[in-house]
Structures are given as C-alpha cells and as structure tokens.
C-alpha cells in the first residue's frame, strides 16, 4: 500500500474519484429509482472504504478535494438567481413563508434539544446536532459559535439531508399537502440542498421555493440558536 499511496492521493486522482463515484451513483439512482440510493450516499460508501484501505487520511482527502467544498458557498449565492426566476410564486407569500419557516426552525431546534436531554446527549453533541437542517457552510459556522464541532455538524447536515430527501415526499403525501409552495418550502427548510434536489425532481416551482427556504432557514436558525443558547437550552 505504501508504494501505491502517492499515486492515489493526488488531487487529480481524488477529484476524479469523487466525480467518478458520484457519476456511478447517479446512474445507479436513475436505474433503480430507489430514493435511498442517493448519489451522495453511494459516493460516500465507495470513497470511505477506499481511503481506509489505502491509508489516506481524511485531512489529505479534504485538502485535495477542497475545491468541491469551496463550491458550497457559491452554490448558496447562486440560489439568489433561482429565487429571482420564480418571483411570481413568492409574491403574496412572503409573510406566510417567513411564519412557516420560523415555526419550522423553532420546532426543529426544540426537538433536537429535547431528544438530546431525554437520551442523555452531552452539550457538544447537542450543539452539533442543532443546526442540522441548514446548509453545510451555515451549519458549520453556527456549530462553532454555539460550542459544537463543525465537522460533526457537517456530517449531521448530510444525514439530515439524505433522511429528509428520502422521507420528506412520503410525509408530505401522508399528511395530504397539495400546495407546490408548501412542499418546496418544507423540503428546503428541513433538508437544505438535498431537500432541494428532491424538490427540483418534483418541479420547477417546488425547486425554486425550496432554494429560497434554504436561505430563510439558514438566517432563522443562525438567529435562533444563539437565543436558545441564551435561554440555556443546551
């Protein structure tokens, strides 16, 4: 393994590995049409054992593929355009959207804190779990400020995203939600960009609203977690 490692730990190889495994993930996802086989999950399931097997540590992998992680920021900014494109669906919905997402954010944070207390999680774990519904760059910032571990928060964001993308559409169907705006808003608020991927599959309106929800949820949660901390919830 020692001899092979230099060849498989280069930027070209590791970035190629991410793109390749993701592509494979996309084709598996499309062929099987099983919603838990998300390309992201397939990619992770292939990369983690590969890194363990070749003995490449996470720092090296992260460093070499940092370009992709960096793109999370611009992709959040680009949502501003997606939002603009769907202006007509936002008009007249501003107050209801803000109210709904605010309530969602409160419910989400309170749930995490209560489950954490009930099952005996420590403060660090709770603080890392609390921002799970917002997009990675925002969640990492929030976790750091509230005494959590940013990398752990990022992992929870991914789990929450996969879970929400999977369960979200089923929950929405079960409770009989008809409104496209409500569907998109719920998916984006609860499961950020991964919820948005699912919402985009439902339609353009759902996708755009979901993108908007990522932004509102991010701002709301960034404002609410310091408040929760002040109230000594965790």
């Amino acid at each position: 393994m020692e001899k092979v490692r230099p060849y498989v730990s280069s930027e070209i190889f590791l970035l190629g590995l991410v793109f390749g495994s993701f592509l494979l993930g996309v084709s598996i996802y499309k062929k099987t049409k099983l919603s838990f086989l998300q390309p992201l999950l397939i990619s992770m399931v292939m990369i983690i054992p590969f890194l363990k097997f070749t003995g490449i540590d996470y720092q090296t992998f992260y460093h070499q593929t940092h370009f992709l992680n960096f793109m999370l920021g611009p992709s959040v900014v680009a949502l501003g355009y997606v939002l603009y494109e769907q202006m007509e669906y936002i008009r007249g919905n501003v107050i209801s959207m803000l109210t709904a997402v605010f309530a969602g954010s409160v419910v989400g944070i309170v749930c995490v804190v209560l489950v954490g207390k009930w099952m005996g999680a420590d403060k660090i774990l709770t603080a890392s779990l609390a921002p799970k519904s917002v997009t990675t760059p925002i969640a990492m910032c929030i976790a750091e400020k509230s005494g959590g571990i940013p990398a752990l928060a990022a992992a929870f964001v991914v789990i929450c995203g996969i879970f929400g993308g999977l369960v979200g559409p089923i929950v929405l169907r079960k409770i009989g939600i008809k409104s496209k705006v409500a569907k998109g808003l719920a998916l984006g608020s609860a499961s950020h960009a991964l919820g948005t991927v699912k919402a985009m599959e439902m339609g353009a309106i759902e996708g755009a609203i979901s993108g908007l929800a990522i932004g509102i949820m991010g701002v709301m949660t960034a404002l609410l977690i310091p408040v929760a901390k002040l109230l000594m919830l965790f």
Partner: protein
Amino acid sequence: MIKGLFYILLFYYIGELVSLLIHQFVPGSVIGMILLFLALFFNVLNPENVREASIVITKNMAIFFVPAGVGLMVYSDLFSKSISVILTAIGVSTVLTIITVAVIQEFFEKRKVHKNERNLKP
C-alpha cells in the same frame, strides 16, 4: 459562464465582508444570496449575466457535499457510540419540521383562497 461565475464570486465576497461586519452572525454565502437576489430584483444586474452559471451550479449542488460527507469517517467512534441519539434526534426533528412548515404554509394559502372567494361575492 465565466461572467456568471465572476458575478457570483463578487456577490459572495461582498457577502463575506458584510458578514465580517456583523461578527459572522449570518454566514457570508447567505448574505451574498440575498444581495444577488436584490440586485436582480431591482434591475441592478442583468439576469442574463448569471443565468447559465447559476443553473449549472445549483443543478449539481449535491456533489459539493461529498468532501464534507466523507468526514463522517473521522468521527466513526463517537458516531457508533451515540448513533441512537443522533438518528432519533435527526429523524424526529426533521419529520416535525417538514410537517410544521408544510401545514402552516398550506393553511395560509387556503385562507387566502377563502378570502378571495368571499370578496368575489357582491
């Protein structure tokens, strides 16, 4: 595409600067998103400039999560130790968030429709 990426980075940068001013209370990318939206809304920026780049980036957003997702491997110990808390907290909280947001939004929309119907009657 290049032009679009330039504008996106520009707004991202301005967002980061504003974020520094408010002690990173709200992350720069979110502020950048709001500023880009406002610039398009108030016709400061031609939407054509950012259309292509924005669509390409947002359509492929999921791949950008791979480096962060693989980070799970570092915390595998803590993870397996507290797996039940983590999954219960995320599961319960996510489902309740989805229900809360969707129900409130649909409630508002239905109320609006009722109001409009009432207004139509003389």
